[in-house]
């Protein structure tokens, strides 16, 4: 093994510079909470020549609230975000999705940025981020750019990040009055497992009418999906049975899942409809409260 380097930059510029140089020469990995990366290193799946720890960069650890719009640093741990009481009031669906990942020990380290960049089709926080309408800020050698979460992934383990680019933070839209989000996942056991289906719903209600809706599914396709046809079916409706059924069918139609020991294709498709309806109910209840 050639010499492995461990770098711990203090600015984004230093991190981008080191990342773009070292990834031309060999395998470089960005280290956030490490809950995926260290397991990959240990099992031999990943043997980076350079590890860049981004947790000493201020922006990646920051939580800020600008007049109702949250910015969450990519490396903020679940346990830290959980203590930010008002974030959970604004985005309970995003928080409950992030909190579903692993044990308290894992929550002490795992981050939204890590979950996104690990690019598992079953990553729990990703559908919730998509439904929230959040964008991700990326910085690279060519400067800064922003991307909606639903455009971030290309396939399992593959992202749209270019050479030297790192995820800086997540920017959430201002939460609308009478809106609410929710995330539910189906797993074969009761806790700490990988989603067989995950569904996030974010709705805004005005005079009992749905004026905005975003629905996202995880673990049913190579990447998490924004189900635009479900939004179309819901917007303008009173959440009457027909509209909800149409949206549920749109969810099912969008599924392109794998067949494995944890869930067959037909099971995952069927569960996507059920989970959507349950997540929708929860989101509506929250929207009516706030």
């Amino acid at each position, binding site marked *: 093994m050639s010499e492995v380097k461990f770098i711990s930059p203090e600015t984004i510029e230093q991190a981008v510079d080191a990342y773009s140089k070292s990834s031309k020469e060999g395998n470089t990995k960005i280290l956030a909470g*490490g809950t995926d990366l260290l397991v990959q290193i240990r099992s031999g799946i990943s043997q980076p020549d350079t590890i860049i720890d981004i*947790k000493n960069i201020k922006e990646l650890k920051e939580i800020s609230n600008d007049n109702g719009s949250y910015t969450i640093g990519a490396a903020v741990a679940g*346990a830290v975000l959980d203590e930010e009481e008002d974030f959970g009031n604004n985005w309970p669906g995003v928080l409950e999705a992030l909190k579903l990942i692993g044990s308290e020990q894992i929550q002490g*380290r795992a981050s939204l940025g890590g979950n996104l960049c690990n690019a598992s089709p079953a990553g729990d926080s990703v559908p919730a981020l998509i439904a929230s309408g959040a964008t991700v800020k990326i910085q690279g050698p060519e400067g800064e750019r922003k991307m909606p979460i639903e455009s971030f992934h290309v396939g399992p383990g593959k992202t749209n990040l270019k050479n030297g680019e790192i995820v800086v933070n997540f920017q959430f839209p201002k939460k609308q009055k009478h809106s609410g989000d929710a995330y539910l996942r189906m797993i074969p056991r009761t806790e*700490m497992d990988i989603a067989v289906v995950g569904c996030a719903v974010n709705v805004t209600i005005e005079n009992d009418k749905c004026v905005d809706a975003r629905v996202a599914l995880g673990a049913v396709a190579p990447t998490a999906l924004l189900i635009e046809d479900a939004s179309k079916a819901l917007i303008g409706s009173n959440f009457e049975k027909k509209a909800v059924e149409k949206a549920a069918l749109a969810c099912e139609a969008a599924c392109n899942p794998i067949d494995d020991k944890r869930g067959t294709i037909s099971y995952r498709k069927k569960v996507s409809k059920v989970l959507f309806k349950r997540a929708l109910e929860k989101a509506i209840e929250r929207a009516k409260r706030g």
Partner: protein
Amino acid sequence: MAKIQVKTKINGEETEFLCQPYDTVLDVLRRDLNMTGTKEVCSTGDCGACSITMDGRLVCSCLVLAAETEDKNIETIEGMAKNGKFNVLQKTFLEHAALQCGICTPGMLVAAKSLLEKNTNPTETEIRYWLAGNLCRCTGYDKIVKAVQAAAEEIRENA
């Protein structure tokens, strides 16, 4: 290969060590610092036997690189008893026979301590959820949960 020099605080004591980039905190604790109280079981963050706290956060030491601990504040099971006296959790674990083989016990104690520092009156459900990342294959958890409840009660009485 050039080693990385790390300066960190372990159980209140300034500690310096040299490590390789792939070394975890768990590797360094057990192999180099002879602090074998922290147990290695799964090495993938599933079992919680290697639980420590870093800057007050409960983490699995198998999922933290040793090189990341520069200027951190680490607490391990070795720091739990003070001046030769058991921590209240260590006492109630013994009183409730909340251990058999003992391999999960240091992790259980460190995790339970971290819960009681946040919440001295947890419900049984809260205790079970908090300790869900600590696997025990001997006792069946009931005695462990009762020991944590007893410790919480003692902490509240002495507050």
